[in-house]
């Protein structure tokens, strides 16, 4: 609109330019047998008085009036579309592959060269509760949705390059429709889980002096001996804040993209989708590290999120400050079994329990 006010007089020529250049140029620009220089000359003759100013107006996205009610219909040419296409196809798409591939390769290399962190002392058999049933429920709820959303999202970005050529047309269509619908419907459920997780764990995640020393020793990679750590170590806190900030960014942009019925402009959607894609790819690349450390990378870590209990030796080695605070709560296998049996009994017979 601002261009209209500034350069009202130009618009008949802008329109002429649009008509001439944009619509008929492919033929003018590539005449049979003529070199490109002639094409330009021809164009100048076809459009007398064409100047850079007109182009700037078109690039500025001149708007007019129209009877069409579709969003953005009053804009004659939306130039941002081409920028979005470049960003998406030439930066986000290959960048994501590099990030995911680089992360996976780096972890594989680390695993091969350094190997997993073993328990330094044999298990004592005494267990300490680390993650409550609520913690684990939230974690696995978010984790499984994360994997499903990550997979379907990657399909929307990359599947046309490798799956479409090998799938029959009907199967391909059904697959992509399913991917889009699953992604769009599970997204808001992921948002709820993420929010619950952030609220549940935020109180453990303030950085302190212990974390600084933990970082200085690279979490135990640099120098001798395992650095001190409380309930959560510096690395876990970093992952929490990545999940919080990048996760919320992905969730908010996802919700904007998921509900196009609020009249979002095309330009808004372009930015939203770029932010969503970049954020999600960063999260996925980082999640590889989290998954590795929580499973193959650290002996005795996975059982914490699986059963809720970790071995004393593990707690002492990885979270010594926390261990010293809660070591009197350690229970042996028999007690653990009894506690679990009690739990399942109450769960199985709620009427008896009440």
């Amino acid at each position: 609109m601002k261009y209209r006010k500034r350069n009202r007089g130009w618009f008949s020529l802008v329109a002429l330019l649009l008509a001439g250049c944009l619509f008929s140029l492919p033929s003018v620009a590539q005449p049979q047998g003529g070199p490109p220089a002639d094409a330009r000359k021809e164009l100048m003759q076809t459009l007398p008085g064409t100047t850079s100013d007109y182009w700037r107006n078109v690039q500025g996205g001149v708007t007019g009036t129209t009877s069409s009610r579709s969003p953005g219909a009053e804009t004659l040419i939306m130039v941002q579309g081409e920028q979005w296409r470049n960003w998406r196809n030439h930066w986000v798409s290959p960048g994501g592959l590099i990030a995911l591939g680089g992360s996976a390769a780096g972890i594989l290399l680390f695993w091969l060269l350094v190997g997993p962190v073993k328990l330094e002392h044999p298990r004592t058999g005494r267990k300490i509760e680390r993650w409550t049933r609520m913690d684990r429920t939230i974690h696995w709820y978010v984790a499984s949705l994360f994997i499903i959303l990550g997979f379907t999202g990657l399909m929307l970005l990359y599947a046309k390059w490798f799956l479409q050529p090998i799938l029959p047309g009907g199967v391909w269509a059904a697959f992509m429709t399913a991917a889009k619908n699953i992604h769009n419907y599970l997204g808001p459920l992921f948002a709820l889980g993420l929010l619950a997780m952030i609220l549940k764990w935020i109180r453990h995640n303030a950085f302190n002096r212990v974390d600084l020393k933990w970082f200085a020793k690279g979490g135990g990679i640099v120098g001798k001996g395992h650095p001190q750590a409380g309930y959560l170590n510096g690395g876990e806190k970093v992952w929490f804040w990545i999940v919080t900030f990048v996760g919320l960014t992905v969730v908010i942009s996802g919700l904007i993209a998921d509900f196009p019925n609020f009249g979002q402009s095309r330009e808004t959607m372009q930015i939203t989708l770029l932010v969503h894609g970049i954020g999600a790819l960063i999260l996925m690349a980082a999640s590889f590290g989290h998954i590795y450390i929580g499973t193959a990378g650290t002996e005795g870590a996975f059982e914490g999120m699986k059963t809720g209990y970790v071995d004393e030796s593990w707690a002492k080695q990885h979270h010594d400050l926390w261990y010293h605070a809660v070591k009197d709560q350690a229970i042996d296998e028999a007690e653990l079994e009894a506690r679990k049996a009690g739990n399942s009994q109450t769960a199985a017979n709620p009427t008896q329990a009440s």
Partner: protein
Amino acid sequence: MARMKFLCDSERCIDCNGCVTACKNANETEWGIQRRRVVTLDDGEIGKEVSISVACMHCSDAPCMAVCPTNCFYPTEDGLILHNKDTCIGCGYCLYACPFGAPQFPKQGAFGARGKMDKCTFCAGGPEADPALEAQKYGANRLKDGKLPLCAEMCSTKALLAGDAQEVSDIFRERVVYRGHRNGAWGATQQEPGLSELARQAAELATDAARS
């Protein structure tokens, strides 16, 4: 082989919306779907008002095709960009990439989810063997019968031209030559060196834009 293009002569377009109506009638598009629209700049300002009829321009390097996650677009031998509604998932990416606002979406699903994309086919139908189904999903296939798009055929001032790009631009060029001789604008670029330099730059930009 022909390369089909639309061209709208803004000097002739009178904003009658005949093309819009013709399109809607030929293709029986559903409620809310308008494959063609007329944009009027400086509406109501005497001497400045111009109108242009816009629909899918069947780009040589189509942005919609480049961003589609399901690859539902395909170029035809005539240089048209058509799409397969069976493969379309209604994500809207083509609308975000298209400079002309051509892709249209019926609002069918819950929570504002889009239906399958609909756009101008240059009255060339779509990938459906059964003519009845083709008409229902994609609209008219006039090209098959040797006819041009109805919007251009019905344009009362022949502002909207459709057909082989070479022929269409020849007609347009002829018009510009005629107008140029009458109003004296012809050759102005050669007489003013400063303007000519600007014109050369603009032409360069335009040529690149048309090629990309």
